[in-house]
């Protein structure tokens, strides 16, 4: 079971708590986690990744285990601690004012 922590606006949109738990089939990668997240919560499609290109939106970041995984290939394995459920995979809205 992989834990995913969402930013507050996406929690509100998906009507979930701070963390959701996902059963990810196959290798645990950022892409697979996001596929599972969007399959369970279709209203999140297009809000983290562009609908058409599937690229990460510019002001969204992926963190885990104190590392920024935003620029890591989405098919790269996630850290063991994430795949074991010991640490969450964080979807973060980039810092900005206004």
């Amino acid at each position, binding site marked *: 079971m992989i834990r995913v922590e969402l*930013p507050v606006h996406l929690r509100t949109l998906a009507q979930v708590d701070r963390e959701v738990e996902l059963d990810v089939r196959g290798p645990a990668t950022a892409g697979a986690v996001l596929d599972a997240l969007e399959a369970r919560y279709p209203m999140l499609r297009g809000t983290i990744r562009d609908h058409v290109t599937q690229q990460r939106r510019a002001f969204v970041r992926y963190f885990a285990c104190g590392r920024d995984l935003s620029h890591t290939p989405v098919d790269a394995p996630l850290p063991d601690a994430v795949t074991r459920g010991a640490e969450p995979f964080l979807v973060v809205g980039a810092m900005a004012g206004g």
Partner: protein
Amino acid sequence: MSGVRVLVGTRKGGFVLTSDGKRQRWDVSGPHFAGWEIYHIKGSPADPNRLYASQSSGWFGQVIQRSNDAGKTWEPVGNKFAYDGVPGTHQWYDGTPHPWEFKRVWHLEPSLTDPDAVYAGVEDAALFHTTDGGQNWRELAGLRGHGSGPHWAPGAGGMCLHTILLDPSDPKRMFIAISAAGAFRSDDAGKSWRPINRGLKSAQIPDPTAEVGHCVHRIAMHRSRPKVLFMQKHWDVMRSDDAGESWTEVSGNLPTDFGFPIDVHAHEPETIYVVPIKSDSEHFVPDGKLRVYRSRTGGNEWEPLTQGLPQSNCYVNVLRDAMAVDALDPCGVYFGTTGGQVYASADAGDSWSAAVRDLPAVLSVEVQTLP
């Protein structure tokens, strides 16, 4: 007693204001979708409990929300706005070709007859349509594809399709407007389009009378005379009596003919309203005075409406989608400011009061007249 429901989109959420037919006391609900930009909320003329809202964010993109109970509860529906085929290019600010990129929905225009059918005007400028209540959106690609698209360029606010007018007498005719391309008309339900900008003069483009390139801020019509159109252009207030085939200037005695919204009285097709703004480089009302101008002659002769509006130290703007009229008698007129006030007049503009103050900057105002 009949009443009204005013739908307000702001920089940080949506609000619903309700009142009885007197339109003096207001109940305010919201913020809905707090923290998100709500570009537009509009109700279906065929089912006033069916509302659609455009919710967007620089972080998380576009969401479309739908309500079946007049805004008490909402559900997200489809938000995939994919351009038809290879998107192609338009002009960028430096004159180079730039690919079309979807950014947000500026305006939602529900069908006059079907609560599940809605048109969406988006940035970068294109027109989308849904027939299943917003679950799926399909581009009406004839607009971008009719030929002039590669010459369109963004205004400072982005290249947005912000106005959609449906002809109540002809279901196949519709008008749209784009900043900064101009006005366009379809006579076959959106399949094909042509520019309708003859008579516009814009000193800000190389050829002031070019077929496209004009920064049209808003167009409006009265339901009883769909061939008569009124336009607030970047500069100039214009009028067409032939469904946009030609335009003439009716700025007349306005203190400045720059502005954003324009609207028509519900029962007097020659009575129109604008809010003059000082200039394209100073986006606030002139002389610190918030004045709506009304013409009862379809333009040229204008009177300032000031009763109840601040007449000193006021430096707000009123954006293009932030004015609306109700269908009661006397006609109610509403507008929202970038300072967060929503002003209402229950006497066709003769006097005004704030329905609510201190909201986030207002992006859009629509009104539903309730039985």
